């Protein structure tokens, strides 16, 4: 579990760094290009698409992490519930979250195969789409695993969100 979360943080942070770089670099390239009258051409034609897919990686890479720290709950009546009931409910929600992750992984696994077979690619940079679908398959499965592991192993103190 801690290793899964560490990988998740590292990958997602890297994608965030990349996103920041792409957006900043494309602004800089544009300013250079315009102020030099086109002489300095460092423009990145696919910058917008690169940023979009960086966001995709950022979000899905963070999913296993989100299974622990990213599930926003609303604490309203439950503070008055008996502890056992709260724990039971928390386990139930985590297992259902795991099911959703599993279903996503299942969907994207098929989509990965289809995209691979058909050779689908992104519009601008022509990056094969199966790479992204495959990535989502893995991270969704990891999210499902993280959620189910939490449901099974979580310690006997009901957490507050």
């Amino acid at each position, binding site marked *: 579990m801690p290793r899964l979360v560490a990988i998740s*943080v590292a990958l*997602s*942070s890297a994608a*965030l*760094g990349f*996103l*920041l770089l792409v*957006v*900043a670099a*494309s*602004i800089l390239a544009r300013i250079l290009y315009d102020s030099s009258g086109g002489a300095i051409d460092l423009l990145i034609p696919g910058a*917008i*698409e690169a*940023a*979009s*897919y*960086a*966001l*995709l990686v*950022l*979000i*899905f*890479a*963070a*999913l296993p*992490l*989100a299974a622990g*720290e*990213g*599930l*926003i*709950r*609303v*604490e*309203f*009546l*439950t503070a008055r519930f008996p502890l056992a009931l*709260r724990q039971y*409910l*928390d386990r139930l*929600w985590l297992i*259902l*979250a795991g099911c*959703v992750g599993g*279903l*996503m992984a299942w*969907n*994207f696994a098929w*989509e990965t195969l289809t995209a691979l077979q058909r050779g689908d690619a992104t519009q601008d940079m022509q990056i094969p789409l199966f790479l*992204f679908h495959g990535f*989502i398959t893995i991270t969704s499965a990891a999210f499902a695993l993280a959620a189910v592991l939490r449901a099974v192993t979580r310690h006997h103190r009901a957490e*507050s*969100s």
Partner: protein
Amino acid sequence: MSPEAIGFLAIGILLLLIVLRCPVALAMILTGAGGFAAIVGWQPAVSLFMTGPFEVASNYSFTMIPLFLLMGNLAAQTGLSKDLFAAARRLMGGWRGSLALASVTASAGFAAVSGSSLATAATMGRVALPEMKRQGYSNRLASGSLAAGGTLGIMIPPSIALLLYALITEQSVGALFLAGVLPGLLAFALYLLVIVLHLKLHPEDAGRPEALQDEPLWPLLWRASPVALLFATVMGGLYGGIFTPTEAAGAGAMLTLLVALARGLKRQAFAQALRDTVVTSAALFLIIIGAEIFGFLLSVSQLSFGMVELIREWGLAPWQVLIVILVFYVIFGCFMDSLAMILLTVPIFYPLILESGFDPVWFGIVAVVTVELGLITPPVGMNLFVIRSVAPDIAMQDIMRGILPFVGIDLLRLAILAAFPAISLWLPKLLGAY
């Protein structure tokens, strides 16, 4: 059952799940897909788990969210929050309750670089709460002013809430950010007023009066000045016609990083800013994905459509529609997570607002004010929880008592903003952004 009935039932189940501590995103996904399955069919519902998340997470406009979050987190890690507080404290030195006034002032400053209320409350809470306790401030005044000050994070631009509203309604991000400036400053002024009035009634809450500091003012202001530079870059670039909104977010985050590096940002702190950003982004995107899937159900159930019909049938006047919506928001906001509320309700209410002839940008401001209110209204106010997590020894009861005057003034502000749209629309119209 008719699709509309299924839609209403799903909303009921959604609320029930949320009350039972189901994670908000999961609740939206389960009820959204379940209701969609009931109306359209199981197989299409299962495929929602694919297209929904993919389209949301690869939407270029949404890159603004992590970029603005990163900007705020870097600003916190590099100590801009501390510098803001130090400068505000020096400015207010000698007044009764100077630390509480300084907390709200520094929160307003921090809001200019942070798009999140929770981050603003948490950051300023960490900086200012220990200081106020050391000076003998009462728990209720200290926690109240910080929880309220935190809400400025989503009214003073940049703002994730205004951003989401703009994206849902396809309004200009720039116009909404500008529209938030005056209402944000109004909130700031009213919060100061609340503190001053509160101390007239309960002078003991301010503890020992703080001696006037003789520390020179200018170096303190200089330390905090990058905030002005960052705000000017983002807003100036946006309105000067240099940046698109995403570029403004990227430029703001990059410049904050450069400022942080110049001030000796540690690797550890940089990693922490990245981590905080991706955790918050993932949490937020889970909710956005949930809202997207729930949105499919809202569409096929034609709930908004039905409500527009209903209003026509009842012959409700526009102001009556507005009051109904605002009362709903205020009540709902007591229990619901703030951004989830925007994501869930705006698609339902927006057609009613247009149908009633209201200005969409102005309604965005009004809706976000109600969200701000929701952040500090008991029993479920996220900013209250944040303050408590920063200072676990303060009793929840004290926090709730401390926040009440601010809730009152926010209700007043909501009424003012609803009655006078010009307060929101004057600036964007003046600068030609709207």
